[in-house]
């Protein structure tokens, strides 16, 4: 309990979840977005549609299927229990997996747009200066797409912080494990503890507003370098 009489556990847990999720998403989402930006495969629109699904599906639908997939009775859940001894559902790891899927479009779409804006031209130019494909990516494409990375990171982080439905379905309400801010607010309201709900909600409101100000400022200050 803090001085305000608020349990800060959910706050800490929320930001840890958002941080881990964002890191995982940037690592996995970057090559995926690069592929989407440059592929000529016919299946591309289908893959793009699947990537965008978390934007339109009710979080309960996503949460329901994730719960089914991660339950110890399903192959994925079974495998996880065999390897780690713990269940994926109702655990912090399970929340990370769910959050990665839930926030995927917020990483992939800005990155894909940035990579498309950069285009192949600078990468070709780098290859003509003896840069390997990896060197061309890290020394040219990634810096040129810098704003895309910032936008992707900030949006993925913020979106994960604001997650509720999926967490409720997959993680439940375990203090220190899965009880994030949005769940804590829900619980405070359920128990008619409006004072605490107010403090957490106002915090979320201010945080979300600031994040969006940052995003729109970035859009102005760091234009994506085209050709």
């Amino acid at each position, binding site marked *: 309990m803090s001085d305000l009489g608020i349990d800060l556990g959910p706050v800490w847990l929320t930001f840890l979840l958002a941080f881990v999720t964002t890191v995982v998403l940037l690592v996995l989402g970057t090559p995926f977005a690069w592929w989407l930006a440059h592929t000529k495969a016919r299946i591309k629109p289908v893959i793009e549609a699947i990537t965008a699904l978390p934007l339109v599906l009710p979080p309960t639908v996503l949460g329901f299927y994730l719960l089914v997939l991660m339950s110890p009775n399903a192959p994925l859940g079974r495998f996880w229990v065999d390897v780690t001894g713990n269940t994926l559902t109702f655990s912090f790891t399970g929340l990370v997996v769910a959050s990665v899927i839930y926030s995927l479009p917020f990483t992939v779409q800005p990155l894909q747009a940035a990579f498309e804006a950069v285009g192949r031209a*600078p990468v*070709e130019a780098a*290859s*003509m200066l*003896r*840069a*390997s494909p990896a*060197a061309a990516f890290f020394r040219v494409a990634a*810096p040129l797409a810098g704003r895309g990375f910032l936008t992707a990171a900030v949006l993925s982080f913020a979106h994960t912080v604001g997650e509720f439905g999926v967490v409720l379905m997959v993680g439940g309400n375990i203090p220190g494990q899965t009880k994030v801010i949005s769940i804590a607010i829900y619980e405070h309201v359920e128990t008619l503890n409006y004072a605490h709900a107010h403090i957490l909600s106002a915090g979320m409101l201010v945080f979300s507003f600031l994040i969006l100000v940052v995003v729109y400022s970035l859009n102005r200050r760091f234009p994506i*370098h085209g050709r």
Partner: protein
Amino acid sequence: MAGDLSLTVRVSRRFDGFALDIDQVFPLQGISALFGPSGSGKTTILRIIAGLETATGVVALGERAWLDSDAGVFVRPHLRGAGLVFQDARLFGHLDVAGNLAFGMKAAGASAADWDMVVGALDLDGLLDRAAGALSGGEKQRVALGRALLAKPALLLLDEPLGALDGRRKMEILPYLQRLATEFKVPTLFVSHSVEEVSQLAAHVTLIEAGRVVASGPTDEMLERPDLQSLTGRFEAGSTLQAVVIGHDQAFRLTRLEVAGQQIIMPMLKSLEVGQRVPLRLRARDVALANGPLAGISIRNQLHGVVADIHPEPDTAFAEVVVDLNGARIQSRVTRFALAELGLVEGAPVVVLVKSVAFDRRGLVNR
């Protein structure tokens, strides 16, 4: 550098509605040009040589195969050591000029001495701190050229490096390109659809049309062949004169040059130094002929020569006349009617008239 280095390109590639079939050995002593109209496949050939496009066949620099599809050889672009300078320069927008120049140095093992030489030769000293986006078109191309040279290319590929520039900017870049063969001694293949650029830069030219090689040979020879001029319609008939700069006239803003022992004047080009040899491209249609020297006429350039050759153009009013000026040859396009009235026949003495402004377009226009 091996004295007889050459580039073998024997490739084919099919696109929608376009086929590329090239079987050509490019000599790389002096700049070699690939010349043809837009859409003839020149850029695609450069990209195949650089490894940015796939094709079936063989690409080899000297003995070293970069592509041999039968043998399953495909050297990846960054390992070829080909330096392609793109038409649009493609400087890296997140780096300043110095950062762009230094980009390929480490991988190429370039030294501080290389840096000094390139920066000096291309006059890049004043630009080093500038952002890539803050440069003019001509400056961008100079930086792109310097960047490519500092990656120590085994073969330099220039894709219309002057194509995106207006006339004045072209004149800024040309002297730098002319130094490629003499100072840097980098084997260079240069793509252009401008006969002026080719005549001023290339020792050897390969003419390409619709994805095929039409002819190939020393530049002077190729540009004077009437059969090729009618073949493409882009080789506007004309001749290239070797001139030496004598001096500048500040008052009238003129440059005086000597051609075959005779003087000519042209609008002043300050970038030319006294004593410098310059090729002058002159379109046949800008050259008029007279029986003798004319007074009371604005045309200052009146050169004495002898009619060497007359090629009447069938079914037209015109004839191409080749005039010999003490060994230098100049082409004129006049009507057959005028020839008849003047009584000009092969071996007749003749005065060649060229307006000074005709030289103004040297290297500046595409047609």
